[in-house]
């Protein structure tokens, strides 16, 4: 009972198991000391060696039974139950433990012949019944300490987990915003534009417009859940036009757009992320460049969006990359498990990212 305060102090520095054993030995040692004190104060008529042996029995019986109780609590998972469900179970456990405790003590007293009564007037069963009530006074506080220590620890851990989760969500949100427009792309584009100012002022002017369009829409679309495909395609066309200015004849772009799909709602900047990935992991790694093909059509009851690029899918880097996991997350948020997203190598030199969005039937 006194030990409860110590617990708090030692939690941080000690391993849990070590703490448990220190408290066990300390607590039951204290019980033994109190017994010794009482015998002294009330001048109980008992031989010293008998008293010491009985105290030893109580000490070990206490540790053995409560250790068993702990094993049962751990095994049964009662600590995970809500308080109102755990308490009745624990009270029953206290009763059983107290009986076991009494049987152990009284049994040992019989075996080692340490009984103080000269004549056996009361039956063993009656004695167990009587001492169970006494001993419950030890087991019950033991359990309370055990339970509340863990209860306190658990709630603290939960608080910590909540905090961690919150910071993770914030980080993800931030990353999403950043991932939409890659700074690398912006600066490379600006660099090309500067070179074009002398070489091809017409193209340079157009490039400035394209870049502004992309920056503007990436800021606006943050707030929207979906946009019509047509709007998303405008951004992609501007984006690929700028990449074309950088890569020149190393990048070829092909569009295969079913006009009926232009009104379909799509998550903003999702297709753009896929196209950007296709450039970053595909085209920019090919010495001779390659092709990017953007497809939009209907397939059964789905709106199908496909981005193909020249390149090799390199498992670990690609599937865990932020662009792809954010695509999966956004689709999940909007359509649950009804939408699908996959990326795969379709032949030796082509990688394909495919999104299937369920079409709403009016």
């Amino acid at each position, binding site marked *: 009972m006194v030990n409860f305060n110590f617990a708090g102090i030692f939690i941080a520095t000690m391993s849990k198991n070590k703490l448990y054993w220190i408290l066990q030995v300390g607590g039951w040692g204290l019980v033994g000391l109190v017994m010794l004190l009482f015998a002294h104060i009330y001048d109980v008529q008992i031989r010293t060696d008998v008293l010491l042996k009985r105290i030893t029995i109580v000490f070990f019986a206490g540790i053995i039974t409560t250790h068993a109780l702990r094993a049962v609590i751990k095994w049964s998972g009662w600590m995970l139950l809500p308080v109102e469900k755990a308490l009745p179970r624990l009270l029953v456990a206290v009763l059983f433990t107290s009986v076991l405790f009494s049987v152990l003590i009284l049994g040992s007293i019989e075996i080692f012949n340490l009984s103080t009564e000269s004549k056996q007037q009361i039956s063993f069963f009656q004695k167990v019944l009587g001492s169970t009530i006494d001993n419950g006074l030890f087991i019950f506080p033991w359990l309370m300490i055990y339970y509340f220590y863990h209860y306190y620890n658990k709630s603290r851990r939960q608080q910590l987990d909540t905090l961690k989760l919150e910071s993770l969500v914030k980080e993800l949100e931030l990353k999403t915003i950043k991932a939409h427009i890659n*700074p*690398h792309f912006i*600066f*490379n584009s*600006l*660099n*090309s534009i*500067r*070179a*074009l100012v*002398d*070489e091809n002022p017409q193209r340079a002017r157009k490039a400035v417009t394209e870049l502004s369009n992309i920056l503007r829409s990436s800021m606006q679309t943050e707030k929207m859940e979906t946009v019509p495909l047509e709007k998303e395609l405008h951004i992609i066309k501007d984006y690929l036009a700028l990449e074309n*200015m*950088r*890569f*020149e004849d190393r990048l070829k772009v092909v569009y295969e757009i079913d006009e009926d799909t232009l009104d379909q709602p799509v998550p903003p900047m999702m297709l753009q992320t896929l196209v950007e990935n296709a450039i970053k992991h595909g085209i*920019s*790694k*090919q*010495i001779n*460049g390659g092709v990017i093909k953007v497809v939009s059509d209907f397939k059964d009851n789905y709106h199908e969006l496909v981005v193909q690029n020249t390149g090799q899918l390199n498992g670990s880097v690609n599937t865990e990359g932020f662009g792809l996991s954010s695509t999966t997350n956004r689709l999940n948020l909007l359509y649950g498990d009804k939408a699908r997203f996959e990326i795969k190598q379709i032949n030796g030199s082509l990688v394909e990212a495919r999104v299937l969005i369920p079409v709403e039937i009016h």
Partner: protein
Amino acid sequence: MKAIIIDDERLARLELRKLLQEFPEIEVIDEAVNAEEAISKIETAQPDLIFLDIQMPGKTGFDMLAELDKTPHVIFTTAHHEFALKAFEVNALDYLMKPVEPKRLADAIQKLQLSESKEVRTETEYTNNSILTENDQVFVKDGERCWFVKLSDIRLFESVGNYAKVFFGTNKPLILKSLNALEERLDEKTFFRANRKHIVNLRMIEKIEPYFNGGLLLDLKGGEKIEVSRRQTVKFKEMMSL
């Protein structure tokens, strides 16, 4: 100073060329669009300086440098600095952010000329181009970490299978070069083959002790103890006694 511009984007090369017109001391002798092309051009033209884009198709700029026997002065050009700096232990490299600010370019070139004038080179050092001199620097890449190391800062090369472990400062990264290949390129006045497994820098020796079988034991400045084989001991003594 002869320079080569290495970048996969034509407009980026064009822009840098235009900026460099302000610096008559820098003569752009060639351009390369990827690492492979750059390596052959560097080896034949032996430029004093390269402007190197880090992200290129095929090999990155770092991979390219690690393949060179000796690296000229390097000024990195990149659009994204995180990528460039992450790889570097020492921040002792020059890098320019694209689009390049003319003032930063001027600073980098000035810094380069200062360090160039400090390296007093004698004419003889240029006579044989295939031998690396003490002032030459090599680029060492070990996994994610990279270093520019002057040969004079290297204490020891140790053979580890097909690789050689390079000891300098507190680092000992591995490079994919055999000890025999290294021995051929290193200046024998400075670098001495002590035994089958080790080449030591003679200027890094702190103490010489006699050892078993008429061999020698060299204490290097980094604390390494290297045994000189009996055969090499004869040669070592010859070199040391005028």
